[in-house]
């Protein structure tokens, strides 16, 4: 026994970790293989029988997983972009160009004490961040990311989006009310008032678009905007786009409408009593909301996954790797070597001072860049959803940039200005847009009917 403990003590930390992990992995792999061998057919049959449910689970899991890097990218973007606008450099110490900086607050929030105030309503207090985050993920379920890449194509997708998205108010109120702190309660009420007020112009501004589109399915709306960028709805509903964007800013609690937690004025509004990962979830949800709002704006007004221009020629690469047979193996094995040598040769020959191994490293890196670029190009040309995803994410993150840009520029409005703007300007403008659109549709239909 003493010999065992002695050996254990002599192991380094990675050694101890490996000592535990390797048997565990072996056990899990063996268990997985045995399960698949014994019950594989049954499991496959069950998946096939309940394909829609499985698809939902996979979609939710994928969304939750994909929002983590998205939120980190947005946090990094915010740090860096606002810094550059303030004539600063911004984070540049953690990781290359400070890219890992957004992980630092995440880790900090993770290791902090998860504190519940005395006499707080513990259950509601715990569930409030979950509700806020869950609404974000659930509303993203109907967003079409690319052709065929969406959670569900509901025929009431837009309505579902607003209904579920509006539920985040419940989470905010829960957090404010259960904290046992009058300032939290006031902050919660304040954010509820703001979000409910802006929900109305937000929803009304889209009604005109729904009249034009004739559907509430986001997938169909995107498909209607295919072709040149002039067919995007932003050119047919510019006022709606403006109202939608402003109201969405308020919905996502972004500057200049970030009174929900005006970090430089009040403590944190409804989140005053939150700490640790629960607080982190509120913030996570906020950054996810920024992306979701940008994505929805892209889908509704900026053509979603459609490219802005239609190329006059059609490139089709018909590469079937399976048809090459054994030659493919030689190709995979030889092309990297030959490519590296070919790209290293000019570097080596150009200057006599260059060492052969430096030239080889340079050749290898250049070959990787070239091969990666070619693979990317091939994927873009060959697969619709790669191109669509790229366009969609590009547009969405451009809008995220605009949000960050606004935060770097505009001062925060007062609460009475916020409310007055929503009720006195945005709401009448949205109604005007709705009536004008409806009238235009009626007139055009009557004219067409008269012609026919």
């Amino acid at each position, binding site marked *: 026994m003493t010999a065992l403990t002695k050996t254990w003590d002599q192991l380094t930390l990675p050694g101890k970790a490996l000592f535990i992990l390797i048997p565990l992995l072996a056990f899990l792999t063996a268990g997985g293989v045995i399960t698949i061998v014994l019950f594989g057919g049954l499991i496959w049959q069950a998946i096939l029988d309940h394909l829609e449910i499985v698809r939902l689970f996979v979609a939710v899991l994928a969304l939750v997983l994909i929002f983590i890097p998205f939120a980190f990218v947005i946090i990094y973007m915010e740090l860096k972009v606002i810094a550059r606008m*303030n*004539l*600063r450099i911004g984070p*540049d110490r953690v990781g290359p160009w400070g890219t890992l900086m957004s992980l630092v607050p995440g880790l900090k929030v993770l290791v902090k004490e998860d504190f519940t105030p005395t006499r707080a309503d513990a259950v509601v207090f715990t569930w409030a961040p979950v509700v806020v985050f869950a609404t974000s993920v659930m509303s993203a379920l109907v967003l079409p990311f690319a052709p065929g890449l969406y959670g569900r194509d509901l025929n009431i997708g837009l309505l579902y989006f607003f209904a579920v998205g509006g539920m985040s108010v419940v989470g905010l109120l829960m957090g404010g009310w259960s904290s046992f702190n009058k300032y939290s309660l006031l902050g919660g009420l304040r954010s509820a008032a703001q979000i409910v007020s802006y929900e109305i112009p937000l929803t009304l501004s889209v009604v005109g678009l729904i009249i034009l589109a004739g559907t509430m399915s986001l997938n169909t709306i995107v498909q209607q905007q295919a072709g040149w960028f002039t067919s995007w709805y932003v050119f047919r509903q510019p006022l709606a786009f403006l109202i939608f964007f402003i109201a969405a800013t308020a919905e996502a609690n972004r500057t200049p409408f970030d009174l929900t937690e005006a970090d430089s004025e009040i403590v944190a509004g409804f989140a005053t009593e939150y700490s640790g990962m629960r607080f982190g979830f509120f913030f996570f949800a906020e950054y996810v909301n920024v992306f979701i709002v940008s994505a929805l704006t892209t889908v509704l007004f900026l053509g979603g996954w459609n490219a802005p221009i239609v190329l006059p020629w059609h490139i089709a690469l018909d590469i079937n790797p399976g048809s090459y047979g054994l030659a493919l193996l030689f190709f995979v094995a030889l092309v990297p070597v030959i490519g590296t040598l070919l790209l290293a040769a000019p570097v080596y020959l150009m200057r006599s001072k260059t060492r052969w191994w430096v030239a080889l490293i340079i050749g290898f890196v250049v070959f990787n860049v070239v091969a990666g670029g070619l693979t990317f190009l091939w994927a873009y040309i060959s697969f619709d959803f790669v191109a669509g995803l790229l366009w969609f994410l590009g547009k969405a993150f451009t809008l995220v940039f605009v949000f960050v*840009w606004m935060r770097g520029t505009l001062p925060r409005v007062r609460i009475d200005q916020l409310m007055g703007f929503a009720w006195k300007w945005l709401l009448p403008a949205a109604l005007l847009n709705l009536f004008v659109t409806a009238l235009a549709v009626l007139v055009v239909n009557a004219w067409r009917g008269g012609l026919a």
Partner: protein
Amino acid sequence: MSFVPGIGIVKGMSLTLKRFFEPKATIMYPEERPDVAAKFRGRLQLLLDENGALKCETCFQCAQACPIECIDMGGMDTKGRFHVHWGPPETYGERREESALRRAGRTVPDPNFAPFDERDLSALDDVLERFDHDPKRMLEILEATQELYGHLPVAAIKKISQLTGAWYAPIYGTATYYGHLRFESPEAKAQIKAMAARRPSEDWYLAGLQASLGGGPGASGASS
């Protein structure tokens, strides 16, 4: 300009976008060091000589060279000289006006100097008025002053410096450049010469020189 709703937002957004692409002036300190003069030490320090007295001559060159005007001197020591202390001039309330004068590059009125050079400087006001207190006409002012007093008294140059706003040192330089301007009256100059001539060693030296050269000092003699 007509009011367009939202034009302010557009202006602000364009400004921040411009700022976004502007190069940043940040120096990455531990990796890069700023390029400063070799003599730069980063702090003000007055050095003492071996007797424990300040080496500072209160010439104010440091104060005039300081780009952010953080150096000032004030106070008097027991010998009536400047007792030097340094720091922001606002901390020395008793010399605040003088600090302002000095930072403007002007000579500070010095009450301790007045008894040593008593002179009626009221006539100088007319001269300066005639030349419009214009420092660019300094030569004419100095010539007129010399006409008044026969030479250029230090007190007069100080007053000219104060009232024209020109620094004392350039005025002094102007006065020394031109041969017809002088700092002593001819009588004083003669007195100085006489005093120099009375040096006992000179006669002995000249006699020795004469003996060694075998002749008297001629018209080209340089010693007179």
